[in-house]
């Protein structure tokens, strides 16, 4: 509990103490919101440049390197470009909806950050249905996507929106289901409680993160896959597949509105990554007891950054899926597997009372087998028969 750990909390309370007492909760909320907007806005800017540079490196090129030192000022240049660009609205568009769509997408996502605990005593609100709030707020983005797609009065926009909504609905199911074991074992929907449940250490100081259990590991992977699809990132980026439907529902957007969509997408990714950190990776807890001296928000940031890097890495590595593959993958693989994961978590919980010499490894192996075998079978069933070898009619 060193000073560095609670520095932001003290700062907030110190600032609020200047105001009259009845207004203090409101001031604290505003301060928290301001902090979140600042940090994640910066994060957004940083991520764009890091992503572009990483992608570049992975694809054997430099990436942006002209603006500022090593191209680090590129985001600012982009932002300026976006803001001063002409805002084009199609003639036949439904102007109101066209205007509202980016707002409906972006605003709720900011709200979603309110429940995330970024460090010790560092969540804006502690709702006892926190995770439900998170998903309830997130559901607005589907409406926003539809509004964007439909109001543009453009075939590609509409098709892209429909694809996006189908994808988001399909992947919302495994996304939510994969979090259920965590809630079940923590016995709470409050994110602070969930973090606290992972706060103890065992086996020479290793943290009891959910990701260190079989069901937690499986849940984390399921959650990350679903989250990738939920935030329309590669390899699930076919709603905006440039090669197929131009830019999907974003086709008719430009300038600041486009920037808002862009921001919304990245914020969605951040929020869901923060949730993954909270649910599976112990939140702001250190991985080892002897590392506890570092401030809690530092650990949150480290895990957060690692996961963001993982997303970028996946984007650079994997090719895009087909729509039918996408839907099959969700309904025939992720959903059953997350249901089985629920069962495995129940088994894990029941076997918690085991008391014999090799109890911990036995429990681990049993649960791992319970999740690995269905994984194998479902994977085999999903693969189906191999397609016939491709014929190159004109190539030879």
């Amino acid at each position, binding site marked *: 509990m060193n000073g560095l750990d609670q520095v932001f909390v003290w700062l907030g309370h110190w600032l609020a103490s200047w105001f009259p007492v009845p207004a203090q909760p409101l001031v604290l909320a505003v301060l928290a919101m301001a902090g979140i907007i600042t940090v994640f806005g910066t994060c957004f800017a940083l991520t764009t440049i890091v992503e572009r540079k990483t992608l570049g490196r992975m694809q054997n090129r430099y990436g942006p390197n002209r603006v500022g030192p090593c191209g680090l000022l590129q985001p600012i240049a982009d932002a300026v470009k976006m803001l001063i660009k002409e805002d084009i609205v199609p003639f036949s568009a439904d102007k109101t909806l066209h205007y509202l769509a980016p707002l409906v997408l972006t605003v709720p996502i900011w709200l979603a950050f309110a429940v995330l605990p970024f460090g010790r005593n560092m969540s804006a609100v502690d709702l006892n249905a926190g995770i439900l709030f998170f998903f309830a707020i997130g559901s*607005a983005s589907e409406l926003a996507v539809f509004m964007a797609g439909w109001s543009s009065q453009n075939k590609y926009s509409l098709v892209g929106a429909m694809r996006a909504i189908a994808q988001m609905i399909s992947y919302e199911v495994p996304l939510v289901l994969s979090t259920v074991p965590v809630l079940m074992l923590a016995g709470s929907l409050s994110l602070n409680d969930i973090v606290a449940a992972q706060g103890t250490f065992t086996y020479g100081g290793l943290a009891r993160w959910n990701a260190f259990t079989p069901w937690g590991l499986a849940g984390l992977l399921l959650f990350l896959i679903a989250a990738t699809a939920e935030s329309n990132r590669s390899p699930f980026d076919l709603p905006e597949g440039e090669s197929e439907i131009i830019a999907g529902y974003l086709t008719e957007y430009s300038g600041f509105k486009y920037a808002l969509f862009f921001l919304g997408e990245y914020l969605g990714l951040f929020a869901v990554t923060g949730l993954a950190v909270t649910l599976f990776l112990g939140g702001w807890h250190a991985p080892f007891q002897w590392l506890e001296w570092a401030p809690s928000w530092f650990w949150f940031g480290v895990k957060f950054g690692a996961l963001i890097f993982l997303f970028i890495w996946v984007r650079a590595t994997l090719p895009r899926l087909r729509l039918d593959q996408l839907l099959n993958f969700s309904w025939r693989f992720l959903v059953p597997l997350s249901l089985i994961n629920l069962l495995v978590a129940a088994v894990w919980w029941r076997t918690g009372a085991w008391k014999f010499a090799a109890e911990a490894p036995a429990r681990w192996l049993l649960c791992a087998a319970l999740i690995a075998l269905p994984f194998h079978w479902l994977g085999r069933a999903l693969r189906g028969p191999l397609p016939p070898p491709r014929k190159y009619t004109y190539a030879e």
Partner: protein
Amino acid sequence: MPNELAFLPCAVVTLAGAVAAMMLRNLVHCALCAAGAFAGLAALYLQLDAQFAGFAQLLVYVGAVAILIVFTIILTRGADLRPGAAATSPAPWVGLLAAGLVVACLIGCLVSSPSLNRLPAATADAPVKSIGEQLMNQYVMPLEAIGLLLTAALLGAVVIALREPPKSEPPTR
């Protein structure tokens, strides 16, 4: 208390959304306004300290039902309204009269009832934990029934909306 202050805006949003949903000509606008009304209702639930119900309302109605309605509108080409076509069925005043009568009756009852001018309990909380416990104990049968109903509805919806099998073409000569 901010809670009490919030009633009026929430009520206005809800009612305006509902009226707009029932009156606008463009079906997509109707659906989106309805989503607004649902969100307003969720806010009202929150204002009434029913946190879980409010979030569930948001998740189900805004996240699912509104999307479903929008999908249906697109699939049935409900948005392609011809300029001159009537938005209401014949003799709408009969329906309006009936609805008005119902509202008049209800409000008449409410206003005339003496037992409704009571104040709320000082604190009322619906913690998720006790909701879960009640669902698993007192309400376990309804919960199972709802689960069954949802499954049946899912299957039924899939079956009803299934594309009809292509009719066999008569042989062409």
